[in-house]
């Protein structure tokens, strides 16, 4: 068990990193540890736990902006903004259920560090699209800031976006400023039943490319739909199209979509309550959830794949041949894959992504041994790999911040 360092403010984060640099010790940068099982499995001399840096420092609903210390729980932020009828529009997923943990464990810093986004990603953007500014401590033991608190800003490099998805390997965030948006007044979901994966991709493409502002488009093959209570009764594949906004608009759009899609399959519908549960299940990958306390080490391996929306079905087909289960979000472009066993079968997944015209595949759930031995993230071409290594040289020359978490040697 490595040592845990638990700073309470930015100055203590600076000191902790300086200690690591001076003593050639490595730090695993963490928030509350809810995503410790993501990324390559690494061993460090100590864990830098940022959950002690907690609290919302600024929230101005009419300015659509919120700042919070990096260790603030996402659930706390979501509850706060919900009270002002606002939301984190990128719909961050909660990895708890997938990794066998209690829900609601994640921090804001972890959310941005992993650049998470849920079903609303295609229309609203990912975490990176809502990161306006940050304060952080780099592996040089220096505190710095980037970005600002206004939604429109091109002053200097866009480091808040560039550090999104860096998994703590370039800097430890201490405070983040994000954009918040109004919550839709209500939500309904139109279901098209009985489509195969390829037909579903066509229907989702038509719906998302229509005038009718579809803010979520997911397809669940029959075996997966059976695992989600809101649609389990359908007994067939379910293609779900989410409509959000003011009631008169939803009524209008639903009517138009029904006319447009009625010929493709049987139509059904989820009301607001059922819709909220359904889209949470899609967002949090509930069909592949582990029971709380379940260990990812022995569970079936899970991959997250992003390809062009119309290419998703070909990835699904290639992996179902090998006994995997899968379902689609982002109008077909995001494919969640549960392998038949605990082996990641990495070569097959990477080949399927390449065969679909390219994209990326990330091994989300696997044993520590598999995550130590496999490329968890999409492998980089040599030029990009060298570029990222040089970025690491700039931000963390001593390689003390989560070294190897994303790529060996970085």
């Amino acid at each position, binding site marked *: 068990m490595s040592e845990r360092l638990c700073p309470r403010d930015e100055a203590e984060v600076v000191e902790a990193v300086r200690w690591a640099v001076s003593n050639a010790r490595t730090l695993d940068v963490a928030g509350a540890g809810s995503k410790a099982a993501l990324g390559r499995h690494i061993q460090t001399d100590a864990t830098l736990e940022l959950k002690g840096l907690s609290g919302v420092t600024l929230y101005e609903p009419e300015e659509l902006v919120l700042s919070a210390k990096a260790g603030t729980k996402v659930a706390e932020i979501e509850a706060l903004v919900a009270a002002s009828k606002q939301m984190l529009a990128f719909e961050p997923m909660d990895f708890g259920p997938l990794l066998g943990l209690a829900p609601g464990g994640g921090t804001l810093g972890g959310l941005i560090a992993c650049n998470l986004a849920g079903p609303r990603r295609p229309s609203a953007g990912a975490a990176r699209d809502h990161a306006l500014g940050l304060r952080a401590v780099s592996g040089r033991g220096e505190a*710095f800031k980037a970005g600002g608190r206004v939604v429109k800003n091109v002053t200097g490099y866009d480091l808040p976006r560039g550090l999104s998805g860096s998994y703590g390997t370039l800097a430890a965030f201490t405070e983040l400023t994000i954009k918040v948006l109004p919550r839709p007044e209500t939500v309904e979901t139109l279901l098209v039943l009985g489509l195969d994966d390829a037909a579903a991709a066509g229907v989702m493409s038509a719906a998302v490319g229509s005038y009718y502002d579809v803010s979520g488009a997911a397809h669940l093959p029959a075996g997966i739909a059976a695992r989600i209570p809101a649609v389990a009764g359908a007994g067939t594949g379910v293609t779900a199209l989410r409509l959000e906004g003011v009631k008169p608009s939803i009524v209008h759009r639903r009517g138009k979509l029904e006319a447009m899609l009625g010929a493709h399959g049987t139509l059904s519908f989820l009301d607001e309550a059922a819709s909220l549960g359904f889209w949470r299940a899609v967002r949090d990958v509930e069909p592949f959830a582990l029971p709380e306390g379940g260990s990812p080490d022995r569970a079936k391996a899970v991959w997250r794949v992003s390809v062009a929306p119309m290419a998703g079905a070909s990835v699904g087909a290639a992996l179902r041949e090998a006994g995997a289960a899968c379902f689609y979000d982002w109008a077909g472009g995001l494919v969640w894959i549960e392998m038949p066993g605990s082996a990641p079968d990495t070569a097959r997944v990477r080949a399927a992504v390449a065969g679909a015209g390219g994209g990326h595949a990330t091994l989300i759930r696997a044993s520590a041994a598999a995550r130590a031995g496999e490329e968890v993230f999409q492998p980089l071409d040599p030029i990009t790999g060298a570029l990222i290594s040089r970025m690491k040289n700039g931000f963390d020359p001593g390689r003390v911040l989560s070294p190897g978490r994303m790529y060996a040697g970085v």
Partner: protein
Amino acid sequence: MSGLVMPAPKADVLARRAQIIAELRAIVPGEGVIDTEAEMRPFESDGVTAYRQLPLAVVLPSTTEQVSKVLAYANANGIPVVPRGAGTSLSGGALPLEDGILLGMGKFNRILDIDFANRAVVAQPGVTNLGITHAVAHEGFYYAPDPSSQIACTIGGNVGENSGGVHCLKYGLTTNNVLGVEMVLITGEIVRIGGKHLDSGGLDLLGLIVGSEGLLGVVTEVTVRILKKPETARAVLLGFPSSEAAGACVAAIIAAGVIPGGMEMMDKMMVHAAEAFLGAGYPLDVEALLIVELDGPEAEVNHLIDRVAEIGNGLGCMTLRASTSEEERVAFWAGRKAAFPAVGRISPDYLCMDGTIPRKALPLVLKRMEEMSEKYGLRCGNVFHAGDGNLHPLICYDANVPGELEKAEAFGADILLLCVEVGGVLTGEHGVGVEKRDLMPSMFNEIDLAHQERLKCAFDPEALLNPGKVFPVLHRCAELGRMHVSGGKLPFPDLPRF
């Protein structure tokens, strides 16, 4: 040019000019290399015409391979390179260097792939912003970011500057609408980042490249997302007796959960200038005029127009007109869109500034700008992307009056410093370029800037790409790479450890 200091030209590069031009001609044959003063003159400035400089040579490549070879050659010979799209930058981002190659990307003007099913377009960087929309309009699609120069500006330039427009609040800036790029590094190496899929799964290099102002690489291909054009759009014109009341209306609309497609504010001077210019039918008795546009499905737009009208009436608006036809909607916008030429009619010259502020600071900022206007003896009008707090003050001056340009620039700098003081930023959509370069320390300290420069070092360690832009002082990468950390113990003995 007033007081702008650019990096000193390299004497050895200037001395080898003839040889360099001959070697560039071996890479880009025919008319692709321009070296006469008369032919280079059109490239001597961009949209900031106060700054002019002839380059060493203008190179107009037409293939990625040529770009790669030109950059590798420049890298091997220590020659700076300034990339340029259509030259519409409002911050001097494409200002040439005396010892530098001006790399014009205008020949990259083809759309390579239109993919409606995946809602993506792949274009070469010299395609205009509006050219992308025109290519997909027949199927009812469009490319959302709409900088006011969209008829001329290129998608490659938009990527460099992270360009915005009036619809940013709802549809985002360039960065939110770009899916991938092909880019050539200064070494000549070609990288592809992103594609028709979303996100990278890891580090967001694309997010760093968009808005990097040509300092990290030269983009040779861009993949953007396209959206279905909204079914309907309607606009409401609301006039208020004070900018405070108009600002309160903007805040109330957003607090009510409404995100308009566009929300613009004009102050009294701009309303009068626009009205005198083309008779848009604006009310002349108001202190501030709001144009609020709702777009989307018809039922939604009609519902939200009523809600906005209700909010405006509740906050004491003096004029309230909702468009009832497409002609009327276009007429509401005509005055706003003509704001800049309208000022051109009442003043021989003007500077257009581009700060962003937290919206609630608007009344304070307008009041302080009035005081500055008196102090400098120069008029200043304001148009404001009210939804996202992006302020465009237009400072009127006469370049023929000695000293007035300098006065206008000092006024502009004071405005931007004020934006930072109230919690805003130096530039919302025009970029830093050379224009705001020396103000960067007002927003970022040395450590902040050093971290940004280290990114630059990862891409371009010899600082050959667009030097003299964005950073007030470009440090040597070797100097930035040193680390000064001392001490071997945790100086905070009470830092909790477990």
